[in-house]
């Protein structure tokens, strides 16, 4: 049978936060583009999601368990002057990491963080409340992740064909 593997939409060059889940691992990040542009490198770069997962848990990295991606559009960051949009996204991303540290149970069974929180740009003030935005983003990520867990329950993810691992970094 078939099952939905995800839908992505969004305008190019707009601000997003995103989360990536696999097994008990989670990664939070930000991008100034529609998220798949950034997600590609999370499956191919040694310094991003899959690369870090290889470093900490090679079994999970090579396992056929699915990867879940979720992107959240944050127009408030785009309302900042252009040179500050990246700083605004990083501020929310830092807050998002804080939300996870305060209450990781919202995204259980994911419990191990792979991303590094960016330094918080505390010298900047924004036209939005970064803490409130991050709280909404975290709740939406948790909601989407949990509903996907329910939807994907029972779906079998086959072992990759011998010699062709499903997730393998090109350099490894």
């Amino acid at each position, binding site marked *: 049978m078939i099952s939905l593997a995800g839908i992505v939409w969004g305008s190019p060059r707009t601000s997003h936060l995103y989360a990536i889940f696999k097994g008990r691992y989670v990664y939070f990040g930000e991008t100034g583009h529609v998220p798949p542009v950034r997600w590609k490198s999370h499956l191919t770069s040694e310094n991003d999601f899959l690369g870090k997962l290889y470093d900490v848990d090679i079994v999970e990295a090579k396992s056929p368990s699915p990867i879940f991606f979720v992107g959240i559009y944050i127009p408030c960051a785009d309302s900042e002057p252009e040179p500050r949009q990246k700083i605004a996204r990083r501020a929310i991303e*830092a*807050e998002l*990491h*804080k939300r*996870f*540290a*305060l*209450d*990781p*149970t919202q995204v*259980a069974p994911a*419990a191990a*963080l792979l991303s590094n*929180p960016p*330094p*918080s740009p*505390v*010298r*900047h*003030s924004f036209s939005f409340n970064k803490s409130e935005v991050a709280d909404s983003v975290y709740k939406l990520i948790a909601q989407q992740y949990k509903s996907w867990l329910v939807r994907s329950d029972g779906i079998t993810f086959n072992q990759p064909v011998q010699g062709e691992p499903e997730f393998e970094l090109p350099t490894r």
Partner: protein
Amino acid sequence: MDDETMTQTTQEIAIHAARLCQAIARIGYEPQTALLDIVDNAVTANASAIFISLYLALGRTLKNRNSVAMYQVVDNGSGMTNDEIVDAFAFGANGNYRPHSLSKYGMGLKSAGLSLGTRIHIVSKKNGVLSQRHTFDIDLVEKRNRFIITSSELTPEASAQYTKLLPGESGTVVEIDGCAKINHQSPSTTVRKLEEEMGVIYAKFISDSNSPVKIGIRVCAGDDAPFKGIAPLDILFPNGPTAYKTWDPETYDFVSPYLLLDEPWNPDLADGKTTSPIRLTVVAFPQDALGKMNSPLPPADREMVKRYEVSRKNAGFFIYRNERLIRWGDSLGILSKDEFNIRIRMDLTEEHDDVLHVDVTKQRFEIDDELLGRLKRILDDPRSTAKCIMKKCHELLKMPSGREGEKFTELSANVAEDDPEEMARGTPPDEVLKRQQAQAKESDEAKAEKGISGEDSSAKLGEPAFAKIRYTDQVDYQRFWTPYRDAKEGVFVCVNTAHPFYTEFMKGLADNAPERVLLETLIFAAAVAEINTIGNLYHVEIGAIKAVFDRFHRNYGTYLANFTSENINLLQE
């Protein structure tokens, strides 16, 4: 091998009573923490008044080590019957604590008491009935090598004495003596620490609007000294003197405490276990120096900052267990020694005892690396903000405040401006008086013509002062400064703000910086010397003196200008 498959027997093991007592007396109490553990029992017993007395041994003072003859803690809590007192002396006593009790292992009375002295006496009153006097004597335990207590009927005198201590329907007196055998800090240290810390430790209980707890402390040296009451103090200052503000780098006010985090932390335990959330509150305070004399803040704000007592000792994690502070200013290995303007309150309950491995004294605990890592991530942003606040305060302290010369005026208020050559002389000659009048006239004319009145620039809140150093561009070209003599207030100096030595060097120094004040002192001293010389050296013709000083100033100003141009980036280097 499975235990059940093996043949098992049981046998009782020996307990060496005296050695066990010695051991529990040495689990890490200082006198004040031991006394606080006994106070905890009084709070647990719903006392509304707790009085701590330290009785000095004969001939000893507050400053001598080991000089306490007896510690006494009196409370008006629920009290105990004779049987209940005996039970309280049991090791691991009274395990059925009500939720959120300050007690934990049932060891506090013995371990805290035996860390203070060799004998613990308890007399209690319950439902109006006074108990016997029960004594746990470590010497007797050692002699018999058994856990025993002695119980004595009260003599009429003792009964009257304890009735006086326990005037209500219920209450308890705990007395510890045999203190001389234990090496202790001086009682002044114990009392100072208790006075400084109890208001913070029991702030919630003392300030409880429904059932406030009154705590008093005293030291008796053969007298019946009055108790000093302990005032509550929440070290995070949630109730003022100014309300918490929310961090915005554009509007930081250098006075208020800033609330940087107030969230429940849900520590994720292994194996899917959870526990109730721990409340985390983070507040950042302005730098302590803003409350000191050199602060550019107005006096009222300075006082406010001073009240926070921002210091290394008062920074870090303040960990509360059931609203009672158990850990004061711990870094938890997360905070560095420079982060002394941040206070982090962690609110635990007995539910977290096992997670955080709270020990018998309830003073120490351990957080595992995983939870510590999470806590560190949570605090990343508040810590960065607190550092930013510290930096802003530091910059303000170094920044000119627009009240140039005010500090010198303040510091020189009581410094005489007399000419040492004239001090032994009687009434000044007419020529001197004439010259002084001329100087006063010149001063008034300069004030009127050049707009250098200076009163506005030096005005301090509520007490305008005569500005002794005035910064103005109305000084003759080439001169760095010009002195004047006011008829009433004495000497004042106008410093040339157009002179390169000012624009390149002095302008960049904070108005209240010691460097600036010392430069002003050198200038002012020279000005006093010039004014006094012109006024008092009456046997030298005034025109000649003025010509000398005029030449002097041109040389002085020119040299400074040349030095400045040669070393233009001196302060930047």
